[in-house]
């Protein structure tokens, strides 16, 4: 039973981590996040569904077009819901991104339709047995892609010029600007990237969760909890925290009952916030004087 629960938790936790990675990228560069990240995941799944199942495109072009659309969405979110509020040091961006998420959900209901639809995947048809536990092969794909994306993001941040620019902006907007970095464009790029990650998550999760206008809501919330627990500035921390959170959730649900699951899960968030406000794997920011 424990193996089965760990596998369930692993798949679930990597879903959270995948969503949470998107929070990491924008927070690191602009101290803001797209609170509608869950809805961006939904948009990814819906667009992919519309192209792949609806319009009957081949898989690869569908995915590429979806990711392109999501990048555009990220730029749009940043432009209308974040940039206007960045200078005023207000948290209006928080409400603005949530509002965009609600709009996205309702647009999806109107255009995509109201029912949950199935996204075909040959890897989610038949469960296989691993170590005595049943698992859909597609579920194993989620943590693999999650870790791969984390490594990619970290490498890109450290090794490429654009990534260095992102980090410089993260460190100090004014200094970065003095070095000739276009801060505004960099933040815009961060939002595009974060949105693309949401798109990947959407396509990856669609066969497991089914495609529906409301599929992203819980994911977005749990993803944010995971980002907080892991430390929103640490991609590695987020992936680790996501997987741990998923496994803890599954084990608690399996041994203590589902009623206790959310109570313990979110109590954990509060505890982490109290004990280590920068997250389990984050680094306390030195206070700038």
């Amino acid at each position: 039973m424990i193996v089965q629960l760990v596998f369930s938790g692993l798949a679930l936790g990597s879903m959270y981590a995948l969503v949470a990675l998107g929070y990491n990228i924008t927070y690191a560069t602009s101290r803001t996040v797209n609170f509608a990240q869950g809805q961006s995941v939904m948009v990814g799944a819906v667009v992919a569904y519309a192209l792949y199942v609806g319009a009957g495109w081949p898989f690869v072009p569908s995915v590429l077009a979806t990711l392109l659309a999501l990048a555009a969405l990220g730029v749009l979110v940043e432009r209308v819901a974040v940039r206007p509020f960045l200078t005023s040091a207000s948290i209006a961006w928080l409400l603005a991104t949530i509002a965009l998420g609600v709009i996205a959900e309702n647009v999806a209901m109107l255009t995509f339709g109201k029912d949950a639809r199935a996204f075909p995947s040959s890897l989610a048809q038949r469960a296989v047995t691993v170590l005595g536990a049943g698992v859909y092969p597609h579920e194993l794909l989620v943590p693999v892609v999650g870790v791969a994306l984390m490594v990619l993001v970290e490498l890109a941040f450290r090794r490429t010029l654009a990534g260095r620019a992102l980090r410089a902006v993260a460190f100090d907007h004014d200094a970065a600007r003095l070095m000739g970095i276009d801060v505004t464009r960099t933040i815009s790029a961060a939002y595009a990237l974060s949105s693309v990650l949401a798109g990947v998550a959407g396509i990856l999760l669609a066969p497991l969760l089914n495609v529906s206008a409301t599929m992203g809501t819980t994911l977005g919330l749990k993803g944010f909890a995971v980002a907080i627990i892991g430390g929103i500035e640490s991609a590695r921390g987020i992936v680790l925290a996501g997987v741990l959170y998923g496994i803890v959730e599954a084990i608690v649900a399996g041994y203590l009952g589902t009623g206790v699951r959310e109570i313990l899960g979110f109590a954990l968030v509060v505890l982490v916030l109290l004990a280590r406000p920068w997250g389990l794997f984050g680094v306390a920011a030195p206070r700038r004087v």
Partner: protein
Amino acid sequence: MRRVTWLGLVLLTLCLLGTQATVGFTQAKPPITVALVAAMSGGSALSGEAIKRGLSVAIDEINARGGLLSGRTLELVVRDEEGNPSKGVTGARDVIEREKAVAVFGGLHSPVGLAMLPVFHELKVPYVGTWAAATAITRNGRSPNFMFRVSANDDIVDHFLAKHVIEKLGKRKPGVILENTPWGASNQEGLTKWFGRLGAPPVGFEKFNWGDPDMSPQLLRLRQGGADAIVMIANAPEGAQVVKSRAKIGWDVSTVSHWGISGGRFPELTGALSESVVFVQTYSFFGKQSDVGERVIAALKARFAVKGPEDILAPVGTANAYDAMHLVALAIEQAGAADGSKVRDALENLGEHRGLIKTYRRPFTPEEHDALTENDYILVTWRQGKIVPVTMK
């Protein structure tokens, strides 16, 4: 879907033009408004559409006969409650206070029905449930009681399911998986009671929330507890996840379900697994039909691009709503006025009516506000995406 919507729009326009014309001729015969407050969007949207179809077919028949109260046509207004109780309350108020509805039909979600209950008593307009099955919707201790139902009642369904599991399947250790909502609670009560009386109390009750992606922890607990059959209380999206998780953990166990799963695209979401679930319905458009059945199918074909019974999605919604609308029409006629309170009184004293599901003989009394009984339920399953009756053994 798209084409259906367009056809619908065209028809709607034609109908509107039609009504306009009649109003012009007959002068000042205001239409009588009835309302539907149901989930028209979300995971169970098909249920709302099905109910609307049943009501529309009945309304067309009534209007073609010349309407009610010597020549007033019936008109339907629809509000989407999105499965959200507070939106249901707003919608119910809106259709009664602004649209002057004399009766309000309800949709699939029991929490919404329960939340709207005080509104109907305050504004004195009858509610007629066409899907939501929570026991407390009709058995609510109010007098006079404004809540009626032409649909299943959880308490009766629970008895029906319990009897099937114990007597037909011969299982002794039922496990229950249900949604964490008032509808789930309503069934927890009923199943506890009926399995208890049959001498086989459930080995466990496991809950899930709407939108939960993985139900294996709950199922593992039931299996661990020794369950030899599972009873599922879920709507289509979550029901699909339950069945997929069950297949994942490799648990081959008889699965019996309440009918929430028939309100969405369960077969599309679960594929062949859908055929492993047996569930309850009040009506099936498959098999030999009465003349009423033939008439309804013909009307659905003419109006909604339905080709045959296999295209009648969420069929109980259509069947229940069709009969409910005719019963309400009889009550309006008997009350002699488009007045909520009088219609309510009349509903409790209707005579005989040959409906689609059965011939009703005084369907409602002051004590019994459920028109359908256990004898009206049938067991069905999915075969290649269609709902078909399970042959009785």
